[in-house]
């Protein structure tokens, strides 16, 4: 091999530099991971990204406030509605807008549907990376149902542009809530189906238990967030800690892991499926009547000021830091705190000392979307 690093040892051992990605089936996009291997053990790893950098922050600073909703779709493209909600809520906070209760309920439903869709994609690809390919197709079957619901709601299946500052663009179609409840009924069983294939599977246990262990304080210090952090036993969930939309009216639990390994992160997300279904049921059954848009000025032009607002995206804490100079119709500074980026930062720590096969399992376990990492 050409790119070997020599270092003096008794049995002259070579380290192999292996480039995983940006075109590799299990880097979930255009992530590039440069591995330094001793045999198959990872000695060090460098994460290279930016292949999907589109400058969404810079772009947003040159678009007016309503146009940005559309750009947020393109970040976490498997959970576009969540990104929409996060942005709209930040602007609402900046402007002091009141959002009607019905709109907040629908936002909650959409966010949770989106969480299930995103987790479906995660469980499918994660299992696929570890070699269980059937789960992938099962999960995509159910994700399809969610996409159908979204299509009925806003006409799009991937990039929804489904929020407006101050509320919703349109009310839910008639009968949609019935379909959502029906979906909840189906999904409840299907989650059990995934778990049956994986949770007690010996090979799955061997592949995930004790892999990429990180303690709670370490995970928090490294800036991990979302299910990746909760897998380490830190009960940090923006929905509970800093409630937004209608989460303060919902009853749900925040599942946490104990061991902080890949298996616990898996269990946390599987439980989140159920909790999300619980939230969707409550929100759909208790959906209040009323307007869907609050009192929004015709020209959105917040007064000078800045704020940071975070929501719980399927990946973790999705924050927006927005500065308005009060003079123009576009934000002065638009900054996204991407949860995938923060989780990806933990990869190096998680991977060291494990084998190549575990790198793949760990990339899956931190659940990244490169569109959001690179923006």
């Amino acid at each position: 091999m050409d790119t070997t690093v020599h270092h003096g040892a008794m049995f002259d051992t070579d380290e192999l530099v292996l480039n995983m990605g940006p075109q590799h089936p299990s880097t979930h996009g255009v992530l590039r991971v440069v591995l330094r291997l001793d045999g198959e053990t990872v000695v060090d790893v460098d994460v290279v990204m930016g292949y999907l950098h589109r400058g969404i922050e810079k772009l947003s600073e040159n678009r007016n406030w309503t146009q940005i909703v559309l750009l947020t779709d393109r970040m976490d493209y498997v959970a576009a509605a969540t990104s929409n909600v996060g942005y709209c809520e930040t602007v609402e906070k900046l402007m002091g807008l009141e959002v009607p209760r019905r709109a907040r309920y629908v936002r909650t439903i959409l966010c949770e549907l989106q969480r299930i869709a995103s987790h479906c994609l995660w469980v499918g690809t994660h299992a696929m990376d570890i070699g269980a390919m059937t789960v992938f197709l099962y999960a995509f079957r159910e994700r399809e149902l969610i996409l159908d619901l979204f299509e009925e709601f806003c006409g799009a299946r991937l990039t929804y542009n489904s929020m407006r500052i101050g509320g919703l663009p349109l009310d839910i179609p008639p009968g949609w809530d019935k379909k959502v409840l029906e979906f909840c009924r189906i999904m409840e069983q299907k989650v059990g189906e995934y778990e049956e294939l994986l949770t007690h599977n010996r090979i799955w246990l061997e592949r995930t238990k004790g892999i990429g262990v990180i303690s709670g304080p370490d995970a928090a210090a490294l800036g991990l967030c979302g299910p990746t952090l909760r897998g380490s036993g830190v009960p940090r969930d923006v929905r509970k800690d800093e409630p937004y939309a209608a989460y303060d009216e919902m009853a749900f639990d925040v599942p946490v892991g104990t061991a902080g390994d890949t298996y616990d992160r898996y269990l946390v997300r599987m439980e989140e499926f159920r909790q999300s279904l619980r939230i969707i049921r409550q929100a759909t059954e208790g959906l209040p009547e009323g307007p869907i848009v609050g009192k929004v000025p015709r020209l959105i032009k917040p007064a000078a000021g800045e704020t940071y607002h975070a929501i719980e995206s399927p990946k973790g804490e999705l924050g927006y830091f927005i500065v308005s100079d009060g003079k123009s119709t576009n934000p002065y500074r638009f900054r996204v705190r991407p949860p995938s980026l923060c989780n990806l930062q933990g990869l190096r720590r998680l991977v060291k000392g494990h084998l190549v096969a575990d790198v793949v399992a760990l990339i899956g376990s931190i659940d990244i979307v490169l569109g959001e990492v690179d923006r």
Partner: protein
Amino acid sequence: MIDSFVVPLLKILVVLNATLVGVTYMILLERKVIAWAQSRLGPMRVGPYGVLQPVADALKLMIKEDITPVRADKWVFTAAPIIAMVPALIVYAVIPFGPEVSLFGRPVTLYVTDVNVGLLYIVSVASVGVYGIILAGWSSNSKYPLLASLRASAQLISYEVAVTLTLVSVILVAGSLSMVSIVRAQESGHVWFAFLQPMAFVIFFIGGLAETNRAPFDMPEAEQELTGGFHTEYSGMRFALFFLAEYANMIVVSSVATTLFLGGWLRPFPNVAFLSFLGIIPSWAWFLLKSFGFLYVFIWIRATLPRYRYDQLMRLGWKVLIPLAIINLVVTAIVKVMVH
């Protein structure tokens, strides 16, 4: 002249062609079964229910561009798929598809030949097949294939030990190395060896999965880790040869398992007169049916289980299967001596 030359040649021709057709349809079977397991339909477009898909696949692979990487070792790169394919095919020489039958008024044995070291022949020829994988990985001059080929060779050598040890215990019970004699021994012993040697049967099956690089032991071609493994750099017909070899090996393992443990061509309960109506189905059909059962389980496992990690696989081989196989062998030997 006819008996010593023409008939064997014809048999070879038939077996080779049947194998190749079987292998291509094996791929279709795999795609279909996995599709059904995943609530899909599988190939449906080429022919009714996709039955002509193998033909289309073969055509596609043949007319695809054949790429040799610039920095590859050209000779070895070309030879590797052939080295992988040939052992997988010549093994069929000693597999007994059925006993002697009368065909066009002349007695014909339904196997190409019966070597007195038939079982060892299979093992040794199969052990040469690993060269195809190692050399493919090495000659590609690329990192992923190299890693994959290292994995493959380590895996094959480890599991070969376990598999061979289980075979020895079967040989002890049967008292012969000839495939035909082993089937005859099951007939005269009134029992399939799967029941006499259950542990050997299980170890052989697991080892067989590992030796054919099938899930959950498909480490060498783990596409999610090594982007396709040892055949990453191959394309066209050379790539197809690797595929054919893998499926041919699967059929070999199923056939050997059928012969050794499930009574080969014998119908169930061959000595119970009450069930003689089962004899309507010819012997070779029983053989194919049993082998097909194995193949189905192979595919089923692939659709269900995640993949082992490389070190776990080695641990399973060396710390579980080989000791178990040795214990099984020793116990078999002791029992055999006591019975005598």
